[in-house]
Structures are given as C-alpha cells and as structure tokens.
C-alpha cells in the first residue's frame, strides 16, 4: 500500500496551488491573522499560468478612469473575458482591483513601467481602456517573498487530490507528496480550503499533436480545482461553454494582445473593420470580437490569417518585444531571434487553439466561497467570474480573507485522516503503483483528448454527442483504474492529473 504520512499538517486556511490566486489568497488570509499553508504541485517560485510573467492587469483606477465605474464595468462585460460574469462579483472585483494594483506596486512589481498608470491592449478604438500595462516578469518572485514575509508556509511538491468533507463542511484535504521517487499521501487538517489550481489544460489535443505539453496556459494546471470541488459536491457553472484562445500557429502561447499589429489576409488586407495600423495603445481587437477568425478563413479558403506588424512604428515594435519578455514569453522572443524572424518585416501566422477550461468551474459568492461551507475557489478555475491575472489577484485576496474569518469561528480540528476518501485514494493509487505492467498515464490522457475533441468540441455540441462522450469517458475511467501502472511519484502525479481532467470533462 502507498504510505500515508501519519503526521498531518494543521493550519487555519489551506490553499491549493501557489499561483497568482493562491499566493494572493494566502497573503489575504495571513493579513487577517490566519495560519496559512499553500500546497503546491511544483515549486511556487515558478508555477501556474503566471510563472514567468504577465503584462496586463484589468483594473479600475478612479484617478484615470473617472469616478463613474459603470463605463469600465460595461467594457469588462463586453471584453473577451466578460461572457459569464455574475455582475455583483464583477463590481466587487473592480472596486478592489486598484488596492491590489497598489499592493503589487508597493511590493516591487512595476505597475507603472510607462511612468504613470497606463492602459493598453484588448482595446476598442475610442472606448475606455481597462488593461493596465505592467512589467510582471518578477511577479512570482515578489509574491512568494511577500507570502513568506506574512509567515505563509509553502509546501512544494504536494498537489492536492481531494478535499475532505464531513457533514457538508470542509475538514481537510488530501495531498500527494511527490518530493521523492516514492510517493506518499499526506492529510492536511484545516478549517477552510481555497482551491486555486488554475484552468484545465491538456483536455483537448495540442495544435502540435505530438507535443501534449505545448499549451498556452500552464500544462500542469489540469482541472484539479474543478474536479475536487465537483467531487466534494460543490456546484459548478458554465462548464458546458467552450473557451477558445488564439495565437501563434503551432507554438501555443498566450498574449495575442501584446502583438501590436493588424490581423490580415495573405495579401495584407485587414480582416477586421477596426484599424489598418496598430500602435501601443490600440492593437487589433478583431480576434477578441471575432473569436473564430483564424479558423474561419482556413475553412473558407481565404486564409491563412497573419499578424501583421510590418506597418507598426519601430518604437512600438520595441515596446511589443519588451512586452513579450515582461509577460513571460521569452521563449518566443528567443525563438524568433534564433530563426531570424523579425516582426518588422515578417508576418506570423496565427491560429485558433483547441478549447480549455478557464472561467468555468465552481460558482462562488461575494466572499469567494463555493456552495460547500468552508470551501473557497479563486483564479482561473472560478465559473461565474473571470478577469485572468487581475481576477486571480483580487478575488484570491477576497477568498483568503473570507476563509481566514471562517477559520477564526471554527472549533477544534476534525481527525480528517479517517475520512473515507483517504482510504479510497490510497486504494486507487496503490493499485497503480503495485502493477508491474500496464497502461501508461499518457494513453489515458490521449484517450480523454480524443473523446473530448470528437464528442464535446467547440463547433458541434448536442445531447446525443455529449451523452455518448460521457458514456465513453465512464468506460475509460473503469479501464484506466483496472489497467494503469505507475512506476514512480512523477507518473502517479500525472495519472492523478488525468483522473482530475476526466472528472472536469465529465463535470
């Protein structure tokens, strides 16, 4: 049997995931006096979608936007991330967003790289701009340092697999310790859990089919939050709506709005009606409002579509290249240099990627709490609110504060280790580890991707297709449980991801 560490961790508030939402939740909770532990799958220094940076932070700054917040709210709701908001959440987010911007600036993330608060990217010509340009390459270093200063304990290499519930209340969580080759299970006793595991990647095939980890958001974010919240009985919302992102062809990367250029046909004419020349303040919003543009022109035969920065002024090209580095796209910058691709002269083809789950997941209230008492969620996994890194920072902080207040009212710890879920997981994981031969986790992951692409794709969704897909996922689950073999902690961690990804798919 897999070893279960009989020395449980105890804390007031447990955070699942050390990304932007998790670190901000931890800081929020610690600021109101809670003893906080972050359980992180990898290492919090570089984990999650914000691992290497970001450069745009949605916020409302009254001294720039004026005292009326409503136009900014309207802009948020009409933006590409504005589709599934509960408006009171969006309002609360905007009200607190400036506080978090000032926190970050004070802690050492440069939120005014242009000398003052400045807004650009994802903007309609002639309308309010809502994305604050910032220099976030050091954001995780700064937030880790700040969390530690607030006495947050960060436990790396401990992905959470399940939340432990008794009488519809959180009593703890179960983690998979992958510090060494031999994995162990670890119980955490706590009064409140903030799930901040990010989006669900690797659910659909990569645009480079042989490279499963070629994803725009972090491929280690695999729907753990949605899956463990679902298994705990929390209400999930908007799961049925696919989210599609677009960007550089084959090399799946985020940050299309950092490109200062025009989306064009092969002959150089713009595909959208908005601009014919881009500058740092207003790029081409065509792909935000016509989400499927890249795919549509391939199907109509007019394609491919290109990002054309060749008319952009040289100083704005430099600004764009600086923006790539700040948002953590250094790989793309270096690859363009190696391949002598010069955006002032060359046009890069863009494409639409397969869906992933972001802004779909547990429904939260104004305190960041799910429908389960003591179970909170924040960041990309939340289902009824989305503002990417700014949402993770702001609602992460709110969820952390609320979780700390909840913990302060709680009594003694429950034992948690005797929860039925612990024994069940131990049985599953032991079976994987004890098999000397069997299916590889990759086989299961690819199977899930095949089923999702054919039965739950973004183009055609019907009752019969979804029901068939659900049936096949159920069969896949049974066969995986009976046949998968894992040689070590790493492989078991990957298999646990597949289980969660499949749960997220079924949810």
């Amino acid at each position, binding site marked *: 049997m897999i070893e279960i560490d009989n020395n449980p961790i105890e804390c007031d508030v447990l955070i699942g995931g050390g990304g932007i939402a998790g670190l901000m939740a931890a800081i929020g909770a610690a600021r109101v006096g809670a003893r906080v532990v972050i359980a992180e799958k*990898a*290492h919090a*220094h*570089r*984990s*999650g979608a914000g*691992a*290497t940076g970001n450069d745009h932070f949605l916020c409302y700054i009254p001294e720039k936007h004026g005292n009326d917040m409503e136009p900014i709210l309207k802009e948020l709701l009409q933006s590409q991330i504005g589709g599934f908001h509960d408006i009171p959440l969006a309002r609360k987010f905007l009200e607190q967003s400036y506080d978090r911007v000032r926190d970050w600036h004070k802690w050492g993330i440069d939120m005014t790289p242009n000398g003052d608060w400045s807004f650009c990217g994802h903007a309609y010509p002639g309308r309010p701009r809502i994305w604050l340009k910032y220099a976030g390459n050091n954001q995780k270093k700064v937030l880790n340092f700040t969390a530690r200063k607030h006495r947050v304990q960060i436990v790396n290499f401990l992905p959470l697999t399940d939340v432990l519930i008794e009488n519809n209340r959180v009593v703890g969580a179960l983690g998979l310790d*992958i510090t060494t080759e031999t994995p162990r299970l670890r119980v955490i006793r706590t009064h409140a859990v903030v799930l901040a595991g990010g989006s669900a990647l690797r659910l659909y095939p990569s645009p*480079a089919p*042989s*490279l*499963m*980890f*070629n*994803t725009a958001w*972090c*491929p*280690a974010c695999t729907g753990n939050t949605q899956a463990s919240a679902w298994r705990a009985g929390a209400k999930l919302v908007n799961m049925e709506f696919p989210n599609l992102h677009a960007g*550089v*062809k*084959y*090399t799946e990367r985020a940050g299309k709005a950092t490109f200062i250029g025009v989306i*064009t046909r*092969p*002959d*150089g*004419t713009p595909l959208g009606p908005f601009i014919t020349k881009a500058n740092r303040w207003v790029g081409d919003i065509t792909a935000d409002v016509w989400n499927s543009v890249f795919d549509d022109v391939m199907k109509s035969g007019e394609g*491919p579509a*290109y990002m*054309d920065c*060749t008319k952009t002024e040289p100083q704005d090209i430099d600004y764009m290249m600086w923006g790539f580095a700040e948002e*953590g796209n*250094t*790989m793309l910058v*270096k*690859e*363009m240099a*190696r*391949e002598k*691709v010069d955006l002032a*002269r*060359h*046009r*890069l*083809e863009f494409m639409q990627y397969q869906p992933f789950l972001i802004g779909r997941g547990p429904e939260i209230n104004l305190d960041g709490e799910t429908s389960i008492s003591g179970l909170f969620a924040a960041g990309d996994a939340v289902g009824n609110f989305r503002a990417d890194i700014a949402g993770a920072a702001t609602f992460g902080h709110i969820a952390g504060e609320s979780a700390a207040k909840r913990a302060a009212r709680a009594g003694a710890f429950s034992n948690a280790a005797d929860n039925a879920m612990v024994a069940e997981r131990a049985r599953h994981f032991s079976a994987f580890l004890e098999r000397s031969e069997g299916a590889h986790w990759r086989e299961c992951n690819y199977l899930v991707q095949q089923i999702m692409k054919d039965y739950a794709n973004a183009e055609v969704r019907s009752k019969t297709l979804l029901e068939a897909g659900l049936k096949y996922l159920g069969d896949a689950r049974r066969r995986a449980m009976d046949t998968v073999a894992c040689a070590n902690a*790493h492989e078991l*961690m990957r298999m646990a991801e597949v289980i969660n990804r499949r749960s997220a798919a079924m949810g």
Partner: protein
Amino acid sequence: MPPVLKEYCTGCGTCSLICPTDVFSRELNHKVPKVLYPDECWHCDSCVLDCPVEKGGQKAIELRVPLQLQLLWIDPGVEKQSHYDIIGDHLGTHPDTDWQMPPE
C-alpha cells in the same frame, strides 16, 4: 529534448527544483540533473531564466525548441511575390527564402 544542459553546469539544482512540469531528476550533492521527461517541457523558459551560471553570455541551460513548433511566417503583403516557379525550383531572389531544393 527541450532543455539542454551545458558542460559548465555546476549542478546547483535550481532548474530541477523550479520546473513547473517536473522534467528533471532532483539530484543530491551537486550532480548535474538529468532530463527525465523531455516531452513534458512547457518551453516556459523558467530553467533558463533562473539558471545562475553564465559563460560568455550563455546560460548553462538552454531550450531546444522541437521542429514541430517551427514558426510559420511570410513576407509583408506589399513584398508578396512568388519565390518559386511552378515546378518548385527556387529562384533565389530573396534572402529569406534563399535555399536549395534537395535533389530528387
């Protein structure tokens, strides 16, 4: 094989510790980490960014981006012209497309 370690790696272990997708072995006693799971690389560049060893402007680790991720680009619309005749021989008129067709 995405991350490639140079011979002057000191085995400090930073890359193996911070990799978001756990592709390295975590070695003890300053041994050079092994790339155990190269096809699980996210190409996020964290290992390169955080590598503390540098020699001649070159970190002790670099990413090798797989061929499948080749950037697809063309010239601007105004310069658009055919660099190849219809049977596929190259015309050699443009520096960006100046390459030789392999012999049959």
